[in-house]
């Protein structure tokens, strides 16, 4: 599924029109997985002898969400930050929405693909910044895996977002401490990072909750709700 979703991400422009079934319909993860397994080995050579990977609608869906998250992280890379590491983490809004709508596995795909493609796009793939993103994303996903089981009646995206934000910065700080700056002076910055996590976690959670509630009201699929916005952003 990884290669397929990645291919779908890279060939998104061509693939958009050819998979109408991916739009307006939630693809369950189990179905997506079996579809991928069926798709394995379907690598064919066409007349122009270029290699074509068979991608499913689910792959395209994951890729679309990852592309949206990627757009948000590129957007916020342009925002100046008073302290390196303090960022709004807007891409996590997408992760939260995907988590609520399609479950943890899809959210993990979207999040990790975003980190990988973000590294390639920003030019820091395999550089420290990439590993910081990765450790943050992995810790967030680990915490989300646990927090998604909280009773939905009382706990919404805001809770998940706050937990994920704290986990994100904790993961990054641990990596910084054990790899980049093994100095206790780092502890002085922890309260600032924690406060930023709380603030941005809450805001991101509110935005995600806002979208999810709006969808619940309108019975609109996430794809159709967000997709037109990408198009408007890109095409003017």
């Amino acid at each position, binding site marked *: 599924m990884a290669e397929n979703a990645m291919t779908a991400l890279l060939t998104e422009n061509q693939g958009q029109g050819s998979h109408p079934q991916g739009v307006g319909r939630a693809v369950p993860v189990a179905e997506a997985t079996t579809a991928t397994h069926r798709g394995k080995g379907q690598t064919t050579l066409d007349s122009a002898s270029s290699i074509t990977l068979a991608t499913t609608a689910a792959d395209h869906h994951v890729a679309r969400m990852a592309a949206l998250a990627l757009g948000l992280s590129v957007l916020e890379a342009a925002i100046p930050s008073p302290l390196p590491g303090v960022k709004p983490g807007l891409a996590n809004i997408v992760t939260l929405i995907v988590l609520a709508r399609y479950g943890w596995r899809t959210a993990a795909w979207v999040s990790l693909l975003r980190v990988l493609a973000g590294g390639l796009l920003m030019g820091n793939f395999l550089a420290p910044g990439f590993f910081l993103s990765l450790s943050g994303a992995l810790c967030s996903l680990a915490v989300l895996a646990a927090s998604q089981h*909280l*009773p939905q*009646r*009382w*706990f*919404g*995206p*805001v*809770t998940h977002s*706050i*937990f994920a934000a*704290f986990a994100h910065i904790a993961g990054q700080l641990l990596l910084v401490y054990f790899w980049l700056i093994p100095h206790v002076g780092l*502890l*002085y910055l*922890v*309260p600032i990072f*924690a*406060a930023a996590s*709380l603030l941005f*976690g*809450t805001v991101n*959670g*509110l935005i995600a*909750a*806002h979208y999810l*509630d*709006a969808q619940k009201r309108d019975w609109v699929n996430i794809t159709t709700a967000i997709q037109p916005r990408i198009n408007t952003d890109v095409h003017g």
Partner: protein
Amino acid sequence: MPFSLTHIKIGDWITLLLGSLFTVWLAATLWQGGAADKAVIRSGGKIFREVPLSRDQIIEVPGPLGLSRISIHNRQARIAADPSPRQYCVRQGWLKQAGEISICLPNQVSVELNGGRKRYDSLTY
């Protein structure tokens, strides 16, 4: 669509509260110990005097080479004058944080700032 707080459920408020408490606790734990409240002055390895930083004063401490003059001003302390040949302790300047220490080895005089909690044996620069 108006952006309202109705998206926040009761558990979210609890998480928000716990998160705030956690952040405040982090700040209280990690940022304390910076403020010093007394200076411990030693001469010949024995405590000569312990003085609060709240009152500005100048203290003269006798050593084998002569008198060291210690100045306390504006919740900071320094060795203002000392007969030691290389003047390291004088050039160290003002001590501000708990745990900082200034030592004049030849004259066997030292000043150390103490706070609520002793975090380092010494701080050197």
